[in-house]
């Protein structure tokens, strides 16, 4: 995989990333007309907006994000969900897809259950609320959940979901990717194992070019070596 080894240059906090006239985007700050990187990452310029795509960092919830969370606590009318962020995320009973009687939350979700939901709102002091009213929101039964760095999520999804559809197509797994870096995989054991190692590869080499080809190669090689010919 020599061709996929070339890398995008990285910027370091404090490094100048753009002269006057450019607007500071995410991961940057402006001082005296100059734009500087605020995070370790890859410089990106688009329509006069400079941003730094971070290589590492925690998930900070944003309104509308699809997230995969684990129920960690119950209240009489809400669940507390761990969404892998610095902020606790309550899911109110009225935001669930069920009609929940007061005090009857444990009939629907218990501690340890995993859900796919969306961030309903985030206010200025970062109080988060979740919702499960969206179409794809559900309790996740079976399958496995893996965690990757939240900054690598866009690479796992790919442009217009190209990477994720490649993974789904080649492994035959059901895959849900949460913006919070949690990925739910469901399928046959060997298929999920192949998908998981492909995702690990994406995470590891997120900043290299030709990632899609590398992933395709890996999946095809793994399938040949570990699964052999499929039973008829």
């Amino acid at each position, binding site marked *: 995989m020599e061709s996929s080894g070339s890398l995008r240059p990285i910027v370091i*906090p404090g490094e100048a990333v753009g002269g006057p006239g450019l607007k500071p985007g995410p991961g940057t700050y402006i001082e005296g007309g100059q734009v500087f990187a*605020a*995070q*370790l990452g890859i410089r990106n310029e688009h329509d006069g907006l400079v941003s730094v795509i971070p290589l590492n960092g925690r998930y900070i919830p944003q309104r509308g994000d699809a997230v995969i969370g684990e129920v960690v606590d119950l209240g009489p009318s809400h669940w507390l969900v761990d969404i892998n962020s610095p*902020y606790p995320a309550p899911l109110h009973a009225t935001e669930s897809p069920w009609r929940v009687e007061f005090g009857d939350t444990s009939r629907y979700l218990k501690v340890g259950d995993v859900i796919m939901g969306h961030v309903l709102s985030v206010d200025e*002091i970062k109080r988060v609320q979740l919702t499960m009213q969206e179409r794809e929101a559900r309790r996740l039964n079976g399958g496995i959940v893996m965690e990757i760095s939240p*900054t690598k999520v866009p690479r796992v999804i790919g442009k217009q979901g190209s990477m994720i559809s490649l993974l789904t197509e080649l492994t035959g797994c059901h895959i849900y990717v949460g913006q919070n870096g949690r990925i739910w995989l469901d399928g046959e054991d060997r298929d999920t194992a192949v998908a998981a190692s492909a995702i690990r590869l994406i995470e590891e080499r997120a900043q290299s070019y030709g990632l899609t080809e590398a992933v395709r190669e890996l999946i095809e090689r793994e399938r040949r070596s570990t699964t052999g010919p499929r039973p008829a």
Partner: protein
Amino acid sequence: MEDIEHIEKQMKLIRADGRRLDGRKPDELRPVRIEAGVLRRADGSAYIEWGGNKVLAAVYGPREAHPRHLQDPARALVQCRYNMAPFSVSDRKRPGPDRRSVEISKVISEAFSAVVFKEQFPRTSVDIFIEVLQADAGTRCAGLTAASVALADAGVPMRDLVASCASGKIDGVVCVDLNKEEDNFGDADCPMAIVPRTGEIVLLQMDGHLTFDEFQKAMEMSIDATHRLYELQRDALRRRYSTTLEDILRESPPVPPPPMPESELPPPPEDDFGPEGI
């Protein structure tokens, strides 16, 4: 009776040729090696070897601040714990925080408070852990320099890296980066940390006495040294992401051990018992 009053107490720290006991020039740093991303479980980490100092730094966060009453609704907390391992010094150090390490933790967390964009993460804390594995004077500077790399490695938004270096006076000569002997028997030690891009000073302490002119000289030397360290920090971060782990290990081999003096003992007897297990 011996006249103990007139025994020379002063240890000679500058050689006749103007160099220091370890052969350095007054403005020369000890060898420094920085490695970023050495710990798997922490969000960000770094390891520094600076002369005889060996320091690990780990960063977690931003994460939920505990206890809850410490949370600040407007910004993140920057908390730091500087700790010396019991085996880091020649006399065993009693484990646990003491007056000195609490002070160092405080000044380091304040230094980082000045560069981290705290407003982006209200109600959270960024936790920095500095573990001194081996100490040889200048551990707070080494710890700060490593922690700054760990902070960038964790992806915490910050204005710039922080670089730190001490300078001091030994035998009346202002020198940069004192080692253990120079620190113990010298006249003054003055650690400082700067934000290299702007030249802001985020940590400045002094132990001993310096005249104003000496202080200015010391500060100039420290600032010059921190710029050299800044390059090493940036290089460590670049190496972390521009190569695979194998490449990192290949590119910067551990400092080679000094050649062992020829043993004066007779060579070990030839083993005539045959291979083990027979």
